[in-house]
């Protein structure tokens, strides 16, 4: 096989494409993937039918015997979701910003000429950041719950820990990519090293950092909802419990509430991001 006289083993992109396709096929074979397995017996298909049929008529009253109104419960759960997400994002933002400064190449480069230990510290911070974000918030929740039991702080920490790692990684990259011109000018004004960093580099990265923080807040809402599965009083708990009792109309009420919440925050943060970057 050759194109225009170049043998295939000298075509790196073609080889890469073949390797990726090969890996994909190998995984399908290894897992014995078969879409028809999803159907199983008739009972499961019927259940699936019920679930999707309930989508057009979300419950306004509880499907349990008491038939209490859904709205106060949903509003309460949605509010809890927002509160957990806000607390976790705020905490992660503070920790992530500090770690992000310490994880950026630029920050250590300012000291590199005088401190031989800088590369070591830099590598250490990056390792910590990697560790924080390589463990998913659900796993952090499992560990923290096992250690401290079910408390609001447990949920907030479970989200805040991996998020501070993610903030740190993204913020450090944004700082490293900010243009060097302004900071060079401030260095020549005679500014001390930390001022060069704070006034020459950070402002250039700030709009992007702000925009990213809003995006992470949206992610935190989804994470807070998911942590409801462990018993925290967020929308996830409502959805999880309703689905467990096969109250699909209630389940859909919870799902729609989550959907509306995410859309509202997306719209709001989109508007804010626009103002941050354009104004």
């Amino acid at each position, binding site marked *: 096989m050759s194109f225009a006289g170049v043998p295939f083993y000298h075509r790196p992109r073609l080889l890469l494409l073949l390797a990726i396709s090969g890996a994909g096929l190998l995984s399908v074979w290894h897992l014995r993937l078969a879409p028809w397995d999803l159907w199983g017996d008739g009972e499961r298909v019927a259940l699936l039918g019920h679930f999707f049929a309930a989508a057009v008529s979300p419950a306004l009253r509880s499907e349990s015997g008491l038939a209490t109104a859904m709205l106060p419960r949903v509003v309460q759960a949605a509010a809890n979701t927002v509160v957990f997400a806000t607390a976790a994002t705020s905490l992660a933002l503070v920790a992530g910003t500090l770690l992000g400064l310490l994880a950026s190449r630029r920050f250590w480069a300012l000291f590199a000429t005088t401190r031989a230990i800088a590369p070591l510290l830099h590598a250490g911070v990056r390792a910590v950041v990697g560790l924080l974000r390589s463990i998913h918030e659900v796993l952090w929740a499992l560990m923290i719950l096992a250690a401290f039991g079910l408390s609001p702080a447990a949920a907030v920490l479970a989200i805040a820990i991996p998020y501070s790692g993610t903030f740190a990684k993204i913020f450090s990259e944004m700082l490293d990519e900010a*243009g060097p*011109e*302004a900071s*060079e*000018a*401030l*260095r*020549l*004004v*005679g*500014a*001390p090293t*930390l*001022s*060069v960093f*704070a*006034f*020459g580099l950070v*402002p*250039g990265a*700030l*709009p992007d950092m702000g925009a990213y923080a809003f995006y992470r807040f949206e992610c935190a809402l989804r994470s807070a909802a998911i942590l409801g599965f462990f018993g925290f009083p967020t929308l996830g708990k409502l959805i999880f419990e309703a689905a467990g009792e096969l109250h699909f109309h209630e389940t859909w009420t919870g799902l729609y509430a989550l959907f509306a919440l995410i859309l509202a925050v997306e719209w709001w943060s989109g508007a804010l991001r626009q103002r941050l970057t354009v*104004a």
Partner: protein
Amino acid sequence: MPTLPRSSRRHASWGWLASVGEPAPGFPRFLLEDVSFGYGAATALRDVSLRVAPGEAVAIVGPSGAGKTTLLRLLVGALRPDRGRVHVDGRDLQQTRSRELRAVRASIGFVHQDLRLVPTGRVLTNVLAGRLGRWSLMRALRETLFPRRSEVERVHALLARTGIPEKIYQRVTNLSGGQQQRVALARALYQEPRSLLADEPVSSVDPARARDTVALLARLAKEEELTLLASLHDLPLAREFFPRLVGMRRGQIVFDGPSRDLLDEDFRALYQLSEEELLEGA
């Protein structure tokens, strides 16, 4: 426009720099002794010597690649010479410790060719940044996040002198090239320097504004009693506004003297590229 009192007398905010002190009298402001500098294998300056007295206004003229920017950057210690010595106010930059070097830099306002403003910042913040060399980080945060009314008024007055007072709360990205240059100039003046270095100050403005810009630069330097060094392409402008011209070509000074003494042949020699140079440029 009314002339305001000289800013460094008006305002004693030298902070820790006060300990470094005023330069001893009698020293030239800038002194280069047999300075050579190269970027890797490419030589940018070869055995350049230059002496500039306090209060002088000097234009450095010559074609692109003559070494004008390199010369200016050596004077603020942005580059270190490969050979020779650079002195500012009698201080050998090779032997200054970082604190002293910062003091020297704080005494020199530098208007960069590409301006180098903080792009997301407002005009006010950018001008306030001129004083960063005098402030610790904490003081700088306080002064820029919660600027005092008196400082805002001072910045406003400086912007009025550079011609854009109404832009004080605008973001610099919303300004034209010429307006941004005035912000860079105001930043350099707010620094309360003893000297002002301007690298190709007319490259970011249209030719019609070039004369205004150079005139403004020369006037402000005179009013503030600053030593002024500007690199310029435009010979007629340099001749009109600067009493002393330094001509550079291929990393060397080819003439240095009062502008009125320079003959047209000198200028021709500066810009008439030899066949060899034309081939290098190709």
